[in-house]
């Protein structure tokens, strides 16, 4: 039987997870290394939609040095599921990304990311994204 306290805890964790997700998108656009340091798990596996791979260190470094520049991002969370200390978010995002030696590019992606509840906060440990099909030019 699910107690009221347990239900309230689940709701609070889900709210915190959604908030962490949005904070992470914002921190990426702001290249905020400190915020990302808290929001990303040390074991992060970040797979970009073009197949590029990053660890936590290489991902933050790419943003801080401007190698990769998230000019804007608008995310829509579609589903949030929590399995104990693991959170799974699926969503879509429109991202404009540029950087050194890279022309800004508008991308529409579908993504799944995995979060862990560690040390009293959510930390993203995996990200996979794929480019959404272009709308039919009818």
């Amino acid at each position, binding site marked *: 039987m699910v107690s009221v306290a347990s239900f309230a805890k689940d709701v609070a964790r889900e709210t915190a997870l959604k908030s962490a997700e949005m904070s992470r998108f914002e921190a990426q656009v702001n290249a905020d290394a400190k915020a990302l340091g808290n929001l990303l798990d040390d074991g992060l*596996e970040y*797979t*970009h*939609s073009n197949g590029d791979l990053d660890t936590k260190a290489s991902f933050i470094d790419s943003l801080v040095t401007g190698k990769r520049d998230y000019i804007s991002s608008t995310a829509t969370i579609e589903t949030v*599921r929590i399995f104990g200390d693991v959170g799974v978010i*699926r969503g879509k995002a429109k991202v404009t990304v540029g950087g050194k030696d890279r022309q800004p590019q508008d991308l529409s992606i*579908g993504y799944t990311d995995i979060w862990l509840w560690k040390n009293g906060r959510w930390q993203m440990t*995996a990200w*996979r*994204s794929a480019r959404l099909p272009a709308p039919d030019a009818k």
Partner: protein
Amino acid sequence: MRLHFLLLLLVSLPVTTLASPRGDESSARTALLARFDAALHADVAALDKLLADDLEYCGVSATCSTKAQYLDSVRSGARKFRSLVPRIERVTLFADSAVLTGKVYAVSIGDGTERNVDAYFLVVLAWRDGRWQMTNQSSTLLQPKPKT
């Protein structure tokens, strides 16, 4: 008195607490490999057991399917493979779930043509009813190999 209380407590525990150990890394790997094998052989009955009812299956085109949609696509032949070679690279276990990442080298068949679909996968398994069930798979195409 204390002994009686302990016995009563033990008897009142759910059977699953005593009888079903949690899945381990080896069983998580086995479950995922069985899932790929069942997909290769279009074994709908096996997939039905290996996939959770709340499955989210997101392919390399970022299009997501439910369990029913996924099974329909296998049953109808819309989702068909000549080969599927998975390589599990990382398994992280939690209390009732496991996260697995790796690569899969696939040759899919559609409209009479074969297509190489090599991808990174991210899979979440949930431990339910005494077995692992896949509740999410999301994939990203591997970068094409540079031409030599």
